């Protein structure tokens, strides 16, 4: 038997006949009745007759379908702050369905595995994670009910493990599974569809997933300390009365930013700090806690460098003590 099966043509036809039946990418809605009644006219002798057949009714069952796509196409940088990965979950079935949403940061091939912090549904539909606005769900919990063709955006918030190093990459998977049922395409879930119709697993198997990419953007901070001694006799011997100038060079490398970078150093025992001798990049800092970055206490100095992007010029801190 020769048949032409062209599902694409059927889909296009749906759009073409939008007036006759609402256009649904997901197809005819579950529960729709397909009815067949034939009419006939004929003549017999001089009389003309009109007859009608019985009406056969077939109810359209629910086809379970789901699609997941990643809306963050380029790798999302992950540093000290959590990365927000955005996915879209679409009900490609022809009836309302809910989907269990599971984020999984452990994906084969990852250079590091992020830590999943939050799974949230984009409640206000703006495509941006709004803490306190978007609905946070337990990982693996179900979405709200999605109408056929309807989609939601899902956020996975992932944080970087301490073991990650700059420019390492990782993937995080979001999986959506139909609550009605999943499994081999064609599997039947009797009576589980909308309004009690049967539900049939579609080609998706009732589950779908997508991967979003992360790239670590971290900063490495290196502190290098050195000392220059000037004794009272014009030499460089560490004798009582000698002045020691300590220099601490803060070097920030990597593509990320070191946030709230603070350098502290304690005065060595047996020395006396020389008041207001702190400098940052050659500029003097006062000892008091004020507008400048430096503070000196009885025991040591603290210099607040704040956010320092990797690759910026080294920050050199210096201060003087006198050997007792």
């Amino acid at each position, binding site marked *: 038997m020769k048949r032409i099966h062209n599902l694409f043509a059927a889909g296009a036809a749906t759009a073409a*006949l939008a007036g006759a039946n609402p256009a*649904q990418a997901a197809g005819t809605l579950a529960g729709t009745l397909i009815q*067949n009644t*034939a009419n*006939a006219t004929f003549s017999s002798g001089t009389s003309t007759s009109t*007859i009608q*057949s019985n009406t056969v009714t*077939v109810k359209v069952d629910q086809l379970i379908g789901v699609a997941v796509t990643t809306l963050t196409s380029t790798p999302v940088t992950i540093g000290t702050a959590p990365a927000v990965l955005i996915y879209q979950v679409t009900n490609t079935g022809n009836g309302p369905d809910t989907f269990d949403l599971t984020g999984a940061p452990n994906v084969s091939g990852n250079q590091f595995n992020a830590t999943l912090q939050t799974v949230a549904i984009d409640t206000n539909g703006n495509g941006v994670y709004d803490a306190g606005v978007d609905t946070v769900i337990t990982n693996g919990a179900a979405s709200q009910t999605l109408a056929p063709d309807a989609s939601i955006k899902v956020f996975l918030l992932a944080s970087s493990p301490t073991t990650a190093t700059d420019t390492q990459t990782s993937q995080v998977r979001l999986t959506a599974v139909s609550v009605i049922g999943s499994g081999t395409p064609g599997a039947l879930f009797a009576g589980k569809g909308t309004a009690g119709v049967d539900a049939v697993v579609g080609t998706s198997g009732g589950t779908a997933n997508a991967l979003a990419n992360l790239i670590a953007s971290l900063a490495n901070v290196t502190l290098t300390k050195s000392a220059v001694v000037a004794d009272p006799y014009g030499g460089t011997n560490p004798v009582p009365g000698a002045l020691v100038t300590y220099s601490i060079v803060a070097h920030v490398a990597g593509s990320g930013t070191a946030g709230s970078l603070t350098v502290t150093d304690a005065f060595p025992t047996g020395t006396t700090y020389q008041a207001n001798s702190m400098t940052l990049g050659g500029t003097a800092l006062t000892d008091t806690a004020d507008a400048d970055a430096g503070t000196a206490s009885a025991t040591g100095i603290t210099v607040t460098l704040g956010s320092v992007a990797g690759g910026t010029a080294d920050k050199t801190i210096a201060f003087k003590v006198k050997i007792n």
Partner: protein
Amino acid sequence: MRTFSRNVMTAMVILVASPVLALAAPGAVALDSSIKLDKITTVNGQTTHEFVAPQKVVPGNHLLFVTQYRNTSDKPVDHFVVTNPVPSPVALESVGADNFEVSVDGGKSWGKLAQLTVTKPGAAMRAAQDADVTTVRWVIPVIAPGASGTLQYHAVVR
């Protein structure tokens, strides 16, 4: 046109048709409708079609709409015209469509699909496609007393 063995057909009717058969005919022809599911199985690259009672029907499934007629009288019946609206949830498929006339405007005009055009509001006139068909009809010049036949069209669930 495909034909079915009488036994199989009877079984189908019992399964899918409402218990009320054709309305009392003022004339002398019995008309019976049924819907079958084209169950497609592919084994080792060989595709087979089995027409079964539609236990589960989902978008993309292929259906066979069947109308059986039988002249129940002892007189011939002339100019027998069977009109079968295509339900909106399905789209006609071209297989076997050469055997009947189609309408894309609810039965106002008729012809072979290739002769018909469609004009949608705001769009240019175009050739009609299978999915545009709203109604199909068969014209049978004469049915001898006791003679019967089967009329059918294929459609896919949108």
